[in-house]
């Protein structure tokens, strides 16, 4: 069948595109003076997103059911989610090009690694579409699994942004905005200007520093308009908060959908299965993160550290539980 050929073309293509995209982001982070690389990265992400979308659609048409029946499909769905969430993060209103590059440096790498694992490491027989087992024959499958994977993608991008923030602000004391109290620390006026001495700033003055804490003067034909803009680290931190803020409702809805499905199918909305428990652990960790953001005196690096730790928790929840071989998230006695 032609769709099969299309699929094997597309999964390798997605990997190749993401590899190129990643290189563009990395080079543009190292040499910010090279023009159009960041735009190229964004375009690469969009193309990869589209090609994975077509790949999954082809499998859907081919197999006749929503393509989330095995690890291979689930990995590609996750990679699609990460590229989508990357584009969401890029379009969250920041005009700061450096923040876009830094998002891409991390997200393109993880998306590339996922597609590489799916296409090259997974054995051939695990890549094919398999018939659904009876327990999974339900419309809830689409609802539950797709929302869960989207939430993992958003949370992963959020966690990666927290890592990017920690990386950018590694030499500074920082007090940040973005807490739900709506208070703004007056400390930011005293903030040290960012210093990208290692790796980032290779002698080019026009690079990152120009956008840090810059006073933007809009070229209106009138008046004085001087607004102190968010710095790069503040931007990254807030984008991280927003992405986790987006992933958290998705995670909640995904877990609830799973609970309702389990109750409709097996008579119990919660049974402390390892996968379930780890999704709850993920939920608790990110709930704690969201609360650290409104805790006085804890803004800044502490929440970001918790969010970066969250990355490990998400991966354990997504893959680790299954790799341990304990309960394959298989309810009932059939599987």
């Amino acid at each position, binding site marked *: 069948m032609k769709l099969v050929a299309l699929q094997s073309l597309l999964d390798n293509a997605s990997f190749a595109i993401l590899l190129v995209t990643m290189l563009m982001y990395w080079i543009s982070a190292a040499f910010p003076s090279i023009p159009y690389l960041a735009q190229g990265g964004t375009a690469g992400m969009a193309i990869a997103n589209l090609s994975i979308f077509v790949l999954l659609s082809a499998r859907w048409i081919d197999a006749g059911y929503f393509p989330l029946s095995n690890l291979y499909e689930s990995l590609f769905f996750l990679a699609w989610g990460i590229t989508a969430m990357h584009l969401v993060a890029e379009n*969250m*209103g*920041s005009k700061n090009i450096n923040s876009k590059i830094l998002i891409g440096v991390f997200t393109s790498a993880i998306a590339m690694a996922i597609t590489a694992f799916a296409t090259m490491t997974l054995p051939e027989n695990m890549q094919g579409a398999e*018939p659904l087992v*009876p*327990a999974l*024959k339900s419309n*809830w499958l689409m609802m539950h699994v797709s929302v869960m994977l989207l939430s993992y993608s958003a949370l992963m991008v959020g966690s990666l942004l927290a890592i990017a923030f920690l990386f950018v602000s590694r030499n500074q004391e920082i007090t940040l*905005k*973005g807490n*739900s109290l*709506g208070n*703004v620390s*007056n400390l930011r006026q005293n903030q040290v200007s960012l210093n990208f001495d290692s790796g980032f700033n290779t002698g080019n003055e026009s690079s990152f520093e120009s956008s840090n804490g810059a006073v933007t003067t*809009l070229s*209106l*034909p*009138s*008046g*004085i*308009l*001087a*607004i102190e803009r*968010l710095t790069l680290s*503040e*931007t990254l931190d*807030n*984008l991280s908060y*927003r992405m986790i*803020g*987006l992933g*958290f*409702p998705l995670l909640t*809805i995904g877990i*609830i959908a799973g*609970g*309702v499905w389990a*109750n*409709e*199918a*097996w*008579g*119990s*909305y*919660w049974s*402390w299965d*390892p996968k379930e*428990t*780890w999704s709850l*652990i993920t939920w*608790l*960790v990110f*709930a*704690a993160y969201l*609360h650290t953001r*409104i805790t006085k005196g*804890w803004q800044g690096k502490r929440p970001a550290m918790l969010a970066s730790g969250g990355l490990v928790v998400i991966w354990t929840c997504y893959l680790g*539980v299954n790799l341990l071989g304990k309960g394959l998230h298989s309810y*009932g*006695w059939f599987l």
Partner: protein
Amino acid sequence: MANYYSKFLRRELFPILGNLKFAIALLLIIAACSVSGTVIEQGETLDFYQQNYPEHPALFGFLTFKVLLFLGLNHVYSTWWFLALLILFGTSLTICTFNRQLPMLKVAKRWHYYTKPQSFSKLALSTELIGRSLEEIAPVLTKFGYQVYQENGQLYARKGLIGRVGPIFVHASMLLILIGAILGSLTGFIGQEMIPSGQAFQIKNVTEAGIWSHIPKDWAVKVNRFWIEYTPSGAIDQFYSDLSVIDNKSGKELDRQTIHVNKPLRYDGVTFYQANWDIAAVRFTLNASPVLQLPMTVLQAKGTNNKVWGSWLPTKPDLSAGVTLITPDLQGTLLIYDEKGDLVSTVRAGGSTEVNGITLTIKELVGSTGLQIKSDPGIPLVYTGFGLLMMGVVMSYVSHSQIWALQAGSSLYIGGKTNRAQVGFESELLQILESVPTKILEKSYGV
């Protein structure tokens, strides 16, 4: 005395329980305790723990099976300390809602104008425009979705107040879910039955029951038929049970449904789920005999999931000779082996074969359906909680944005803040400023 206690509660205990750092610690502690239950095998036998967690050498130097069992780490999620943590969590949620969230919502709803230019420097984003008028800003803010209040050269605009309400919904719904779960465990029950096709049963084999649970006695369930549909490749496609609810007194059929995995039967607050299966018996005739039935027994290869069902069929009246009937599934094919263990023939249901001079006709294989039976009166509360929780978390994503403006002479001070989406708010505010019409300006500069 009572007064003293309530004072102690309000002054000493509530502030701790409602404290954010305490709540964060509690969330992380519950998470850490939950991890232990996924690492240590739950609900195994004493033997298992003795073998895997010996006293010498103790795992990590302390985790022997005695410590493990003492702490209840073999059933983490039902230990007193885990349940106590959950109750503490519920208490913290309640106190936080009343001591923190509701007052904060009240503060957020209250608003005031800024009357001094100095006030603007305290805002996250603020600026001073020359030659602009307040009247020009107001319609732009409305266009961006803000609710605008203005008088005497002062302006206040806000949007996304719903983002302040969301967290309250989240906390309240979590409480509903906890209460629903407790109610369910007190008034519900879980049972299992394995019933051959054609038989009726009352709910008897109850594995877990709450202290106030009610197990219905005035009706029974009849399994009209159980069958499995297979895919062309022989894999299981779906399991089906045709069930009837029968009134015990009149024998009348009250309900009849065919259930499968993901489609249970609900009756009188009790739900029957398709959960397991078995082969109960084989029905056959020998020569011209009436239809006879022999039970089938499951045979499982050690350490694997491969099962077959078997039965021994005597072919002589004194039982001195016979054949073994084996089947791997409910598709209807039987393998017949002689005493030496050699395959003699295979028969399909409805077919015949000659064994030891006798004509054996297989009528059918009788399947048993394994039903999971459950009643949980807490479900309506839990589901309401689920609904509100989903609504609450979505609402909580919205950022509460506020903008102030003040006309002071030819200067227009404008500034604002938001509680979540600083990046988005910044670009929105810049857009707002850019889209303020500039015609006043030309007038004031009077080219």
